[in-house]
């Protein structure tokens, strides 16, 4: 019997845990690799000029993602790099990145007058083999690169809707082996739910501009509010009104005239509050003790908006693009890489506005906030 037991069990396997990594939906190459000729891969970075904060964050995420993967010398301390697009790019160029990757001498900025020269440079460099990959942020660079039909792959790590704009055919099939674009699923719904979880509101005022639904995500906010049982009091403007000179005066007046007594917060959807109007609009909300929540834009919060919870994690986009780039460096097709990327929330808080509003800032909230403005 005892021999049978030992035979059946092999007399082993006791008191140990066997770990077999099943992995995730998709596996990325995490070992750095150089070009077959031993030279570093040459990367071009493109944006629609002038670059905005999201462009800088994407660039930062991309560069630091490459460093985490081992493509860039780990001795370089990027926490010392300036928080501005061009200055950051110069910081990258000023360091010896190592043997795996190098960046082109300057970033390519389209829409600021020199697009033809950019076209010629990109075509000649890609044909000569001097350039290996282009990484872009924005819908316009995506369309620009697609039309250029280069012989090298390009990655678009930020575009509002790369499918609707025609950069790729769909999130599942880009339609071109050399084209990849990041697709963020349901960012507006997730943002609204995030705000609701954080503040626990059941009634909210929302400033909206109609007519730009794809960009603003207003219908998705409404849909999510319905699912969560949140009542929305909308203060609505037309696209035409938003183009008028006194648009912000009108908005301020509308805000003052609105009955906000029942509202627990106010959400300024895309196209309503900007950097310039932020102090006045958020200041008024704070006076009334109502938290002002921003649809998109850390800089708006920096200027006064109380909080911006974004499901567009720009730095995360850059980071993810670096993993996709790693697969491309290993010889995989860009168009075969997974496009869907779900962001972790990115939260910024204006402490001065929060204090003026009477918003309680607990330890857990502050620990989760990525940046504090005053």
């Amino acid at each position: 019997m005892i021999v049978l037991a030992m035979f059946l069990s092999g007399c082993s396997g006791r008191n140990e845990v066997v770990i077999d990594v099943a992995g995730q939906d998709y596996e990325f190459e995490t070992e750095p690799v150089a070009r077959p000729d031993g030279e570093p891969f040459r990367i071009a970075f493109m944006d629609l000029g002038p670059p905005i904060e999201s462009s800088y964050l994407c660039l930062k995420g991309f560069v630091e993602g490459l460093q985490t993967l081992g493509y860039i010398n780990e001795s370089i301390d990027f926490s010392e790099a300036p928080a501005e697009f061009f200055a950051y790019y110069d910081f990258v160029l000023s360091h010896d990145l190592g043997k795996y990757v190098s960046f082109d001498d300057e970033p390519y900025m389209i829409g600021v007058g020199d697009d033809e020269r950019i076209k010629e440079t990109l075509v000649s460099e890609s044909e000569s083999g001097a350039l290996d990959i282009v990484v872009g942020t924005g819908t316009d660079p995506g369309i620009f690169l697609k039309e250029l039909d280069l012989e090298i792959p390009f990655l678009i790590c930020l575009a509002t809707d790369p499918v609707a704009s025609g950069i790729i055919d769909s999130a599942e099939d880009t339609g071109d082996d050399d084209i990849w674009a990041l697709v963020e699923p349901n960012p507006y719904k997730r943002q609204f739910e995030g705000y609701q979880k954080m503040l626990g509101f059941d009634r909210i005022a929302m400033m909206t501009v109609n007519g730009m639904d794809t960009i603003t995500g207003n219908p998705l906010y409404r849909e999510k509010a319905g699912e969560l049982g949140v009542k929305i009091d909308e203060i609505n403007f037309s696209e035409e009104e938003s183009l008028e000179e006194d648009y912000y005066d009108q908005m301020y007046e509308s805000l003052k005239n609105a009955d906000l007594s029942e509202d627990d917060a106010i959400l300024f959807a895309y196209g309503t509050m900007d950097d310039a109007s932020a102090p006045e609009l958020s200041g008024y909300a704070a006076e009334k003790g109502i938290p002002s929540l921003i649809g998109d834009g850390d800089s708006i919060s920096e200027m006064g908006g109380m909080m911006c919870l974004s499901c567009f994690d720009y730095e995360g986009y850059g980071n993810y693009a670096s993993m996709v780039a790693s697969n491309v460096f290993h010889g995989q097709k860009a168009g075969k890489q997974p496009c869907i990327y779900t962001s972790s929330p990115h939260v910024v808080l204006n402490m001065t506005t929060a204090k003026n509003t009477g918003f309680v800032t607990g330890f857990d909230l502050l620990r989760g906030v990525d940046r504090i403005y005053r």
Partner: protein
Amino acid sequence: MKAFFREYYIILIITALSAVALCALSYLTVLDYSYSNEEQYIITCNETAVEEIETSLQYGKRLSNYYGIGQVLQRSRELISDGGMDSIVVVEDADGNVIATTKDEDHFVIPLSEYGTVRQDILDGDKTAGVLTTYYSKKNVVSSLAPSARRSTFGSIGILALLIIVLVTVGVKKNWQANRIVFAAVAAIVLQGIFLTAVYEQEFVRASEKSIKGVASYIGASIDGVLEKGVEMDEIADLGDYLEKKKQENDFIKDIYIERTEKVVDDDDLFVAEIENTDSSLVLSCRIADGYIRKNVINMVLMFVATIILAVIVLKESLPLSDMIAFRKSGEFEKPVKDQYDNVARAIRYGNFLSLTFEYMCLSFSALQIKEWNQGAWGLSPVMAAALSISICSIADIAGMIAMPAVSKKMNTRLLMIVSAVVIAVSNLSCFFTGSTVVIIVMRFFAGAGAAGTKQVRNEVITKGCGNEEQRNSNLTASNMGVIGGLLCGLGLGGVVAGVFGYQATFLVAGVGHLLYLLFEYACIPWKLIAEHASVTSSEGPGRHPLKRIGAVISSFSVWRTLITIVVPQYFLIMIIVCLIPGRIQSLELPGVVLTYANLLNGIIGLYVGEIVYSKLRGRIKNDLKIQAIVLAAGAVSLMMLDIPFAFSLLILISASIAGLLDGVGTPVSTDLFMKIPAINEHLNGTESLMVYSVIGSAVMAIAPFILELCEKSMIWMFSVGGVFLLLSAVLFAEKGSAES
């Protein structure tokens, strides 16, 4: 001198084993305490990672597409490493698929002998999305305890050597009797306990200091992280609540607060972490919970006392062994004389003590081992397989008992004893050697069948190893005492063996123990005498077909009356200590040491006081029915007092003591009453009667846990069951003295 050691070698062996057990227990207690502190530290360190992952999941991410989660795990690993611990952090999804780890390899093995485990659920809203498991290296903890372990070992050897010197120089010269030698041995063990307490107390303090430093530095760094973003200290609204939460998470922290540097007092119990990102000179102060350390030291001392009591019980139960061996060598052995029958009672008691000790030593550990392996069988989940490994043993036991009368007709009692003991020993050894849940379940089935065989042997020896009814009663009482003692020591020693060597080691000890039981029974039971008695009784006994005889028993009103009013309630009362009291202790969140002492009191009172009370009651009342009526009334009291809403620990200990007394008195009385029923006497022989009695008992013990579970949860059930006992007690009091002795 040789004669001295020959006579008292059992005492010396048991003393040495007790000393080893105390050494192991003290080391394990401190080791467990150190691990527990490290685990609390790990939980605190992992909070950032868990929160980060949970937040991302809440915002729509899934573990399967949380690319870069490995970096989150790495940050946790680095934090844990700051506290001086190597670790491997693993994240699994809800189905147990490993998503990512902090190791570079995709396939590796983690030996649990070298790594401890901390599992933290990752929630997505209300549902569990995955588990973050930290495997931490035990190496540092073990090596930090090594000097104390060495000191305690050498010190204990010294104390044992001192005992031997005293026995040799004084004991031999003055010709000490057994009781005095036992006293000297117990004094040596107590001295060892004091020495071990002194050695390990500082380790409790050191372990707490190490953990508190780590936690203070982590919390300080967390606060710094928030301040670094540009937040002022007074803008953190609920910092006090956060610190309170950390205090609750870590038992070794008495107090935690932020104060100005100049206010920090110089105190050994205070650990300070710098807060850098603030204009004011502030520090985080953590005060060590000396009360928590004291509580753990007291717990260790209480466990020492419990172990010493167990050692004394083993010593006391083993003392007659020398006499039994001496009688075995005498010419009286195998002769139908009073001395031989007295020795049969002694042998029954010691044989039961051995078999029950080793049976209960491993009983519950098959389930724990299967759960630890996390390995199912035949499509069953690990939890179900674990439960099956316990219940299959009982099923085999009951089925075996039903089959045993037929088996014993084809096999003489000695052969049945040998076969049963070998089956149990081999089954247990197989459980030790295997790594398979299936093998454990199958082997536990065989062990249960073997246990039924030993019960049959026990019943044969009780009924046939006697010259008259009085001697049979002595055998019954001795059998019950052996069962109580074995149960008590088995549970206690099983815990020590499992703690020191792991769950599976209990099967090795149980296997070897059953071989010792075989040797003892083979040598000390007068098998020829029993065989002769058996041939006489079988020629005199009931000769009809078994089914007809069972039919006659079932149709007897007095059988049913005795079952309902005596046998079933008696077995139900035995289950109070097995099910109700542990459940009560758990639901009241009382310390584990209360359960240890409840078991201990129950066993000691059942074993030693029960016997005395039983003989005194018999002397005065002379009516078993009335004795049983008192037992049932006391049973109702022990049951209902558990619902009194104060002094919980004290009441539980009193209840356990009463339950022990009821076992010691009630079991021989109820067995005797059952066997005296005319229908039983007429239709079944003695062994069959005891077997039927055991089967009924096993059935009651299978159902009782469910009723006692209801009693534990509801006062109505508790008082209703207690009321039924009082009613039955009244019925028995009202019965005419038909069973008067």
